[in-house]
């Protein structure tokens, strides 16, 4: 039977960004999907080679604009590793708190958008978006800004937490914990949601490893790998948390991993706030000239909300010689072609939504 070719995008409400999908369908079964990317390519890797070390964080934040702080932190950590700078203990705790709050904010948006993609138009999205705002309030208190924070400094942060931050945070977290359970009840009891999620977009553990997927997508396929656990950084080892792994390997498992991770992040933030030591958390003030690196090559990997980022930094005095980033979304999108083959065309966006892609991070 002859295949029909349809073009989706580059501008389409369900693609969550600018991407062009060329889809070959046989009836309503997908025969092949070819993503065309690069619409948001800004050449950030090349740009970093021309800027001083601490001129780069604002560019890093524009890569993954749903979880900007996480990307920024990974870059600053790579620079710290190259320069041999130790992060102050209090700053380590605060970074963990902020990164986990960022993870909650990111997952809330992801779940809301998934509801949108599956036809629960705007109800789920507005609920999660409203709650995400409360997390952004906390981040604003701590970092001074709502969307792009640029609050990481070498060895610490731009400012300490405000005195009443712990109270505000605990209040918000108690509320969020209740809400996340409510979402689970609301979303998972809806047949519109479950019928297009359970058993759709299956990926086996072997396939997941072979395709190189990462983050909740990998853990939803039953591979227990989380950088926070397997290659711990900062104080994650002291905080005692568990990684969330589900073995179903379908859309639903990937969604559910995010839900469980949100609950775990809430617990993590609470523990970190309780254990927060006194002391100084401020990093070096931003100056154009930074200390010279002691290591020529620094590699750092971090668990972002969407998966693992791997920074490979070749350091020159004053500016990076080469910065290579392993973008989690890039490799998750590359897997789309393999997961969607043989699925229904109507489920394409359910699968894409479950991968939780941010195109700024794919294209870099």
């Amino acid at each position, binding site marked *: 039977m002859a295949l029909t070719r349809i073009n989706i995008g580059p501008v389409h409400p369900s693609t969550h960004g600018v991407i062009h999908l060329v889809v070959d369908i046989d009836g309503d079964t997908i025969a092949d999907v070819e993503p065309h*990317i690069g619409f948001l*390519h800004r050449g950030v890797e090349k740009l970093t080679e021309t*800027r001083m070390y601490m001129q780069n964080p604002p560019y890093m934040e524009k890569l993954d604009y749903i979880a900007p702080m996480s990307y920024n932190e990974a870059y600053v950590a790579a620079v710290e590793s190259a320069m041999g700078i130790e992060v102050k203990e209090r700053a380590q705790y605060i970074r963990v708190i902020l990164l986990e709050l960022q993870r909650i904010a990111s997952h809330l948006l992801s779940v809301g958008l998934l509801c949108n993609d599956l036809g629960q138009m705007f109800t789920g999205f507005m609920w999660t978006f409203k709650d995400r705002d409360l997390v952004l309030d906390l981040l604003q208190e701590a970092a001074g800004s709502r969307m792009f924070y640029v609050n990481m400094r070498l060895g610490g942060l731009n400012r300490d937490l405000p005195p009443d931050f712990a109270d505000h945070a605990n209040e918000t977290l108690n509320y969020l914990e209740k809400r996340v359970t409510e979402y689970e009840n609301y979303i998972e009891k809806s047949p519109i949601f479950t019928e297009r999620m359970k058993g759709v977009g299956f990926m086996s553990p072997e396939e997941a*490893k072979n*395709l190189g997927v990462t983050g909740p997508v990998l853990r939803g396929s039953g591979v227990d790998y989380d950088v926070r656990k397997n290659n711990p950084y900062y104080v994650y080892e002291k905080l005692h948390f568990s990684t969330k792994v589900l073995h179903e390997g379908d859309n639903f498992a990937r969604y559910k991993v995010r839900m469980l991770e949100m609950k775990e992040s809430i617990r993590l933030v609470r523990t970190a706030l309780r254990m927060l030591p006194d002391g100084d958390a401020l990093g070096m003030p931003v100056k154009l000239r930074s200390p010279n690196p002691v290591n020529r090559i620094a*590699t750092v990997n971090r668990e972002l909300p969407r998966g693992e980022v791997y920074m*490979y930094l*070749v350091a020159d005095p004053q500016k990076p010689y080469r910065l*290579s980033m392993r973008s989690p979304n890039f490799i998750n999108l590359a*897997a789309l072609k393999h997961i969607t083959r043989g699925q229904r065309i109507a489920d394409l966006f359910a699968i894409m939504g479950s991968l939780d892609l941010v195109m700024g991070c794919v294209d870099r």
Partner: protein
Amino acid sequence: MKVDREKLTSTISSMKGKGYDYLVKITAVDYVDHIDAIYILRDMEAKKDETLEVTLNPKDLWLPTIIDSHKSADWYEREMSEMFGIEIRGRRALRLLLEKWDGTDPPLRKTFQWYAPYNTANPKK
């Protein structure tokens, strides 16, 4: 770990048998007189990463594909080929992934000319 280009495919497939079954990243660094292609592999059970380096002469830029061992190499190889001008042998011609080619050098090579160079040593110039 340094590897010869000729032994790359066999090294990676034998490492896959030994547990390094997850490809983290393929990238390259242009050191002007030579180019290093970098393959980062991971053994998830043993929590170990291994970095393979293949040194290439800029006048003889090609690498064998490793797509038979790791499907995830597909896009990484395309990206590397586009950004560094490295020919990937053993698979069909690669469509550009991220950019449109405008006849200049590959973007991540040090010979790439900026339209308006930014002088970091003296920003006012």
